[in-house]
């Protein structure tokens, strides 16, 4: 709540003492709207209404009706700031990845919107793809925060296998984004959550992996990142750790969790 952020803890106390039995966020909406309604009614009934006749008596209320919702919505912006990230669409979340946004993201600029804790990613596979890539992006990480390691469930790893290039209007956004991002993301480590095995260490660059992988050359229809995430039976990173049950994991269910 913004009141706590600006150290207005008394605002919640005032709302409780008001006796309206309303949540503090709702209370301030009614408060601002009622304040404008009373002030506007006093002004209109005292000065403007006697000068009008007939149906025109409703005209002075137009400005009041315009002002009250503006006050309500303006107050809502101050009181109900939570849930902004939850209401963002998957495409909005992926704008940074796709190269549509440059620099810092708008929701990461202010400290009250940053959530460093593990984030449960919902939505479809596209959203998970976007989140997976976006968290590895240096530009979306707040400055000064330590680098993050990724813990992938088997389902998320499976999504990585199915990932294709995003082509919009004939332009491969993914390729452009990774060219710019590959230099910055050379200190990431991706783990698999259950086994804690290392899926990928060093630079994360999907386009580079795709281009260098032998799987991409031999089987272009199959996602070529299998070696990168250690799910293939070749020389993946997971095979280097020697975990026996690593090859038995299927690509079903789960979310990436960041630590």
């Amino acid at each position: 709540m913004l009141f706590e952020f600006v150290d207005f803890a008394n605002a919640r106390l005032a709302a409780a003492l008001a006796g309206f039995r309303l949540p503090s966020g709702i209370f301030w909406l009614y408060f601002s709207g009622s304040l404008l309604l009373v002030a506007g009614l006093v002004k209109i009934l005292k000065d403007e209404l006697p000068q009008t006749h007939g149906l025109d008596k409703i005209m002075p209320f137009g400005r009041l009706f315009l002002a009250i919702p503006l006050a309500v919505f303006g107050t809502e912006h101050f009181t109900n700031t939570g849930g902004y990230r939850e209401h963002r669409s998957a495409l909005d979340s992926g704008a940074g990845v796709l190269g549509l946004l440059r620099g810092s993201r708008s929701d990461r600029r202010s400290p009250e919107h940053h959530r460093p804790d593990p984030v449960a990613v919902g939505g479809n596979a596209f959203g998970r793809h976007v989140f997976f890539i976006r968290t590895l992006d240096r530009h979306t990480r707040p400055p000064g925060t330590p680098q993050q390691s990724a813990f992938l469930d088997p389902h998320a790893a499976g999504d990585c296998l199915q990932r294709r290039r995003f082509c919009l209007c004939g332009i491969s956004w993914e390729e452009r984004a990774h060219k710019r991002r590959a230099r910055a993301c050379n200190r990431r480590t991706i783990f698999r959550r259950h086994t804690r095995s290392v899926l990928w260490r060093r630079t994360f660059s999907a386009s580079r992996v795709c281009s260098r992988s032998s799987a991409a050359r031999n089987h272009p229809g199959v996602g070529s990142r299998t070696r990168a995430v250690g799910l293939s039976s070749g020389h993946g990173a997971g095979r280097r750790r020697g975990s026996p049950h690593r090859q038995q994991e299927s690509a079903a269910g789960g979310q990436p969790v960041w630590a």
Partner: protein
Amino acid sequence: MILLLVLFVYLPILVASPTDLVSLNYFADTLLFSGAVLVLANALRERTAAG
């Protein structure tokens, strides 16, 4: 007409669930629309009277 819609449809909804943010949104949105229409009508009337 829009003001009547606010008074007879959305105001009862708001009264029925005063803590619901959605009902408040309905009410405020439609009230904003009606206010904008009234302001526009007032401005057009004054312009016609002046011209």
